[in-house]
């Protein structure tokens, strides 16, 4: 049943692999970064072989994530351009969260919430990369005032980004039939018709 030939292709293998590299590096970054964030999380450093290893590895994983996110960004940015229909959708997001998605405005491949998430994550990535490089004493030596600002920006942005990713992951769990799009790249036609009707019509040519 899973591999119905009539399922709709949503992501190519390259897109999925790209997304998973970003996802795995994000998890490693969040776990190692939180270890320095607050003493309550310091035990997480053990997952990386102790505090020193977590400190050494974190920025390199950051570079991996930055590069792979950049590729992902160029793959998907055009698809995430905001339209008036997205703004309309966003203004009524309360109904959606309430579980009542029947009269929501028709959505293309991505809905307004997904697009907003895309741009928010891109901004977070930019801030995290810039501030992370500033704090990276193994390679960079910048004035202490800049490092202090970088530390605040890095910690604050990391907290925001972790919260955004919680929402991102939860949305995928909540909307049944979504996660398979990232596993094997396809979704059912019914899923597409219900959640992204404009996209459904575009790829099937039906109404």
């Amino acid at each position, binding site marked *: 049943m899973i591999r119905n030939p009539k399922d709709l292709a949503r992501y190519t293998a390259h897109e999925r692999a790209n997304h998973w590299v970003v996802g795995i590096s994000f998890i490693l970054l969040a776990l190692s970064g939180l270890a320095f964030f607050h003493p309550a999380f*310091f035990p997480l450093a053990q997952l990386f072989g102790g505090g020193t290893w977590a400190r050494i590895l974190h920025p390199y994983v950051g570079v991996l994530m930055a590069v792979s996110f950049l590729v992902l960004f160029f793959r998907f940015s055009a698809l995430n351009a905001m339209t008036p229909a997205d703004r309309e959708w966003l203004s009524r997001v309360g109904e959606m969260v309430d579980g009542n998605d029947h009269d929501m405005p028709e959505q293309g491949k991505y809905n307004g919430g997904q697009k907003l998430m895309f741009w928010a994550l891109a901004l977070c990535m930019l801030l995290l990369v810039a501030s992370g490089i500033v704090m990276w004493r*193994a390679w960079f030596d910048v004035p202490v005032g800049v490092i202090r600002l970088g530390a605040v920006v890095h*910690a604050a942005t990391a907290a925001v980004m972790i919260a955004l990713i919680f929402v991102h992951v939860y949305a995928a769990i909540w909307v049944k039939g979504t996660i398979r799009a990232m596993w094997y790249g396809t979704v059912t036609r*019914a899923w597409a018709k219900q959640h992204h009707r404009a996209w459904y019509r575009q790829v099937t040519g039906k109404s």
Partner: protein
Amino acid sequence: MALQSLDITRRSATTTPAPSVRQTTEVAKLIDVSACIGCKACQAACMEWNDIRDEIGTCHGVYDNPMDLTAKSWTVMRYAEVEQDGRLEWLIRKDGCMHCADPGCLKACPAPGAILQYANGIVDFHEEHCIGCGYCITGCPFNIPRLSKEDGKAYKCSLCSDRVAVGQAPACIKACPTGALQFGAKEQMKHYAEERIHDLQSRGYQKAGLYDPPGVGGTHVMYVLHHADQPELYSRLPNDPGISPLVSLWKGVAKPLATLALAGVALGSLFHYVTKGPNEVSKELEDELEKEDAK
């Protein structure tokens, strides 16, 4: 260190009280800049007692040697030539950790137990717990700690905590030939400083005074300065040092609050799922498509 560990006031990255049943007298090192001749005996004594040998550098045409603190030079003499009232003054300052009562290094440190503040006021780095992130440098208002290129750990003056623990004065104090370096109870050192300041004032240094900056809660290394109104003259000794507001923001209440907010988002999602139920593809749509297929 078993005995010493009973009198810890603060421990880095630790949210429960440090073992502090034993109270000890607060100590201080007093550096009387007006009596220092810049001989660097203290620098040599520091190397010798702590058994550290910095790399042999090159002459930069000035007395400063080495030019800056390093992971292996925990104290350096800084020589400043300044003009005061049309006269040249050669102001020599022994630089090193100030052993702040409110230490920015300890506040910033994310590694539990890598930085300790003893009840006697000494701020000590325990390098075996250091992870090498350099946050102590980011936190310090005096630019003191240095990361070693060899082992990636941060080092600085320990105020000879090992000597002080057994009732000895720090090595630098022992070596000073002019009495410019004094060590004892902080109260006693303040009295001694008062006498010195009196003497300097009577000899024309109206602005002589003690450098024990309140912005960091006072320090356990204090200076007698002839120009206490202009500490910057002494190779940029900060005028009103304090932990940077950015560091306080970074290490303040925002983090526990952010942690709670993250927990809130995670729990909120869980409860959303169990109260609203999953968002499933509607049965009608599925049936509709099945009928279409059957045609």
